[in-house]
């Protein structure tokens, strides 16, 4: 069972960079843990800290005007590797939603498998969100998963999510629970496919 997701109201962190790849989200040298926890400390490591391990003031996660459970990012977020560590790191850091105008496929899957909701919005709406939170970091965003609606101020946009994944998130189900129930059928299939 995963954490259940219904509605989230939170301020957001704006990261207006495109093509953010999994190596930026969590550099490979931090993938050596054998558990799922603790990756948040190294989230965006090389953007967050300089070579002497001091926080870089210019990076948005170090900018204390911004906080919240929502990360707003540029187009094609999560490209690169299939490592789920990227989703774990974002979740472990405290994010529950990523908003972008485009997501890489495997990342989207991995996020959804870890109760992290990727929300794809139009380029225009993404720009509006960036503008609003940058002009007032206290602006909050509302995510209504049931009605598939993301709102900021007076504007809102519908977002798509696969019906099955939506049910899983709302109820905290895992794919694996569904597959485990299919095991007798799979066994038959396996024997026929030698």
């Amino acid at each position, binding site marked *: 069972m995963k954490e259940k997701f219904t509605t989230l109201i939170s301020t957001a962190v704006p990261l*207006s*960079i*495109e*093509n953010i*790849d999994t*190596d*930026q989200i969590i*550099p*490979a*040298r931090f*993938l*050596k*843990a*054998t*558990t*799922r926890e603790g990756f948040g400390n190294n989230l965006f490591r*090389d953007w967050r800290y300089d*070579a002497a391990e001091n926080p870089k003031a210019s990076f948005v996660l170090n900018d204390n005007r911004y906080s919240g459970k929502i990360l707003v990012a*540029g*187009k*094609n977020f999560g*490209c*690169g*590797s*299939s*490592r*789920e*560590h990227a*989703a774990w790191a974002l979740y472990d850091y405290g994010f529950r939603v990523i908003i972008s105008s*485009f997501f*890489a*496929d*495997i990342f989207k*899957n*991995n996020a959804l*498998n*870890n109760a992290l909701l990727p929300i794809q919005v139009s*380029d225009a709406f993404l720009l509006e969100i960036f503008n609003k939170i940058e002009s007032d970091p206290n602006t909050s965003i509302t995510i209504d998963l049931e009605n598939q609606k993301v709102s900021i101020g007076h504007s809102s946009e519908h977002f798509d999510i*696969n*019906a*099955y994944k939506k049910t899983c998130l709302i109820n905290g189900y*895992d*794919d*694996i629970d*569904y*597959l*485990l129930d*299919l*095991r007798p*059928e*799979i066994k038959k*299939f*396996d024997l026929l*496919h030698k």
Partner: protein
Amino acid sequence: MTKAKTLFEKIWDAHVVKRQEGHPDALFIDRHFIHEVTSPQAFDGLRKRGIGVFNTARTSATADHNVPTKDQHLPIKEALSRHQVETLRKNCEAFGIELYDLGHPFQGIVHIIGPELGLTQPGMTIVCGDSHTSTHGAFGNIAFGIGTSEVEQVLATQCVLQHKPKTMKIEINGSLGKGVLAKDIILYIIAKLSASGATGYFIEYAGSTIESLSMEARMTICNMSIEMGARGGLIAPDETTFNYMRGRKFAPQGEDFERKVEDWRKLKTDDGAAYDLIVKFDAADIAPMITYGTNPGMGIKITDRIPNTRELKEIGEYASFNKSLEYMGLEGGSSILGKAIDYVFIGSCTNARMEDLRLVADMVKGKKKAEHVEVWIVPGSKQVEEQARKEGLDKIFEAAGFELRSPGCSACLGMNEDKVPAGKYCISTSNRNFEGRQGPKSRTFLASPLSAAAAAITGKVTDVRDLMDT
């Protein structure tokens, strides 16, 4: 009459255990590969649920991502890497999975050993917790990377839940010019389609150019499908495929094999089958390629200038583009030829097979590397390493000042000690030029093994055609 299907659809449909409206398909997986980085949490999941592996015969393991490429017989020095490899060892033992550990004659990069051992076969579904699983598609199967939650699903049920992707055909016809390799073909395609241009699709590569390629070259192409966002890429099997596979360790043997071949010959897209998208290229337009930026879509012909912001299609790209050039220490509008490099990495699941090493050896035979350049040649597997030594390639490399190391992912992702230092330039045969991929602040130029070898000799980005006999 049954509906005409693409090769992808045929294989997919033959593996659906359960299909429900509005629900992802439960897709049966024939072959599962695991390695030390993306598997430990999956095994933990099984332990927490108190279940075993569904069918141990369908999973194979190897240690590749963070293994050292020197002194592999000694214990791994770096504690966390050692712990990860030891965890893999313990998990494989506890759950009964075959492991090709360090020191085993079959050890190597997971996407190199699968095909090499004949574990990778046409018509299969293949997954691994690694995005370059797409490599295996060169044999006419559906192969794609998965996350650790899905690794757990496969271990527990031999299935993954997946939505069927859209299909794209990339057709390339004509003959390749001098000095142009499979790596140049795929870098060219990605430059044309962009780093996200194939997201949501599964690609089939076809056309006379593809048909003329060796299995090694086809693997290089399928390998980088993911770099344009595709789930994977496949190529219909043909005589080249069957000849490569005949006699491989885990391939069917003798008459069984020939019977299988008869089935595999049917693995083709039907006439009249529809793809969601078709893209065509002419091989004559492809030249030796190189990337200049920090995603694999930022590639140009090695003789071209680096674009400047004026040439970008979308205004929104400015910031990322400039950030990328700044990271690389390059000027928009300038030429990339002649740019001095510091490191050369010939390795990774894209280009570390025998064919690659032979090409490099041919190019550098009797020559010496530029003084200031460090060259790492990291074979894709123990078998490749052994074969290279048997053919005397190690001697050729040594005479040129190159170092032939032991197999692993190495500087492809810099998880072991093979890291490119900050600010240094590396011309690399791997598949990703992301910021910090080869080490914090490292700068990567992706290119073919020939272009990398040429740069090793001259010490700068070089058009390999200038070094080739006419």
